[in-house]
């Protein structure tokens, strides 16, 4: 796995995260659950920024960024506020793992951005009802 491969994998993850956040945000009720709606909206904005940053980085490296898929598998069920929160939390945990992998495969400013993104994902897990972990993005040693 090269740094470009890891960046492309991370970008693919951001495409998926953005898509799922868009779906969840569209299904969340701003009036009935404003807290969840605000959290999902903020998460969407963060992932859009990170996607755009990754696209710029890959283009600067002379590489064509991977495009978003036409569609993604939706978690099921995805109807209640609890479902939406869990789906977004799962996405953040996957993003944390992806950014942790990018940390290992990058250096310098790129690694710094990956460390920051890993921490951001870990904090959004809390906002989405998760609990603190000993090693976010890695999990328990030996677990997989």
């Amino acid at each position, binding site marked *: 796995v090269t740094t470009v491969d890891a960046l492309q994998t991370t970008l693919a993850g951001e495409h998926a995260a953005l898509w799922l956040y868009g779906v969840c945000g569209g299904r969340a009720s701003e009036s009935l659950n404003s807290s969840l709606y605000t959290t999902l909206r903020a998460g969407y904005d963060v992932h859009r920024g990170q996607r755009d940053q990754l696209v710029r980085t890959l283009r600067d490296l002379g590489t064509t960024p991977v495009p978003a898929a036409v569609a993604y598998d939706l978690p099921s069920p995805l109807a209640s506020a609890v479902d939406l929160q869990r789906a977004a939390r799962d996405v953040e945990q996957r993003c944390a*793992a992806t950014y942790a992998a990018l940390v290992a*495969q990058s250096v310098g400013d790129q690694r710094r951005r990956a460390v920051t993104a890993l921490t951001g994902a870990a904090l959004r897990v809390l906002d989405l009802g998760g609990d603190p972990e000993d090693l976010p993005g890695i999990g328990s040693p030996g677990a997989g």
Partner: protein
Amino acid sequence: VLATHPATVSRRGALVTGAVLLTAGCDLDPRTSEPVEPAPTSGAPTTTDEDSDLALLDDVRAAVAQALTTVLATRQGVPRLRTALGPLAAMHRAHLAALDGAASPAPAASRPPPVVTGDPAAALGGVRRLETRLQRRCADASVSAGSGELARLLAALSASVAQHLARLPEGPGTPQ
């Protein structure tokens, strides 16, 4: 220097083996099953890289150990914070175990534990500042690490401290 050389070599070996073992079995990216190779940008680890990483590891380990000592002293000296600081103490212990798994720890100078007493709000503020510094230190160490796997471990430590900081109460709570 000669007397300590074999131990240094042994710790170097443990650093490489331990960092890999720590993450072995974890699928780095759930979307792919491709094997993950060493970071191409760092190339083959050099002795200088490994020495720097061992120094980095010792530095972070000392900072985590100091944080644990302070958290335990605060729990002891300020009973109102005992419950609130329990998760932080458990986290630091887990982090020390993870760091010791990456390489056997260098002998550390023993320092007397701090004595923390007095105003719970001030004590909580002190813990918050200490943990904030630790979080930045782990993040900086991650960026500086020569080994990609060590960088990943240190980044996870930083993220974990950030999570626990976010869960610290705003105030000391009611007396227990």
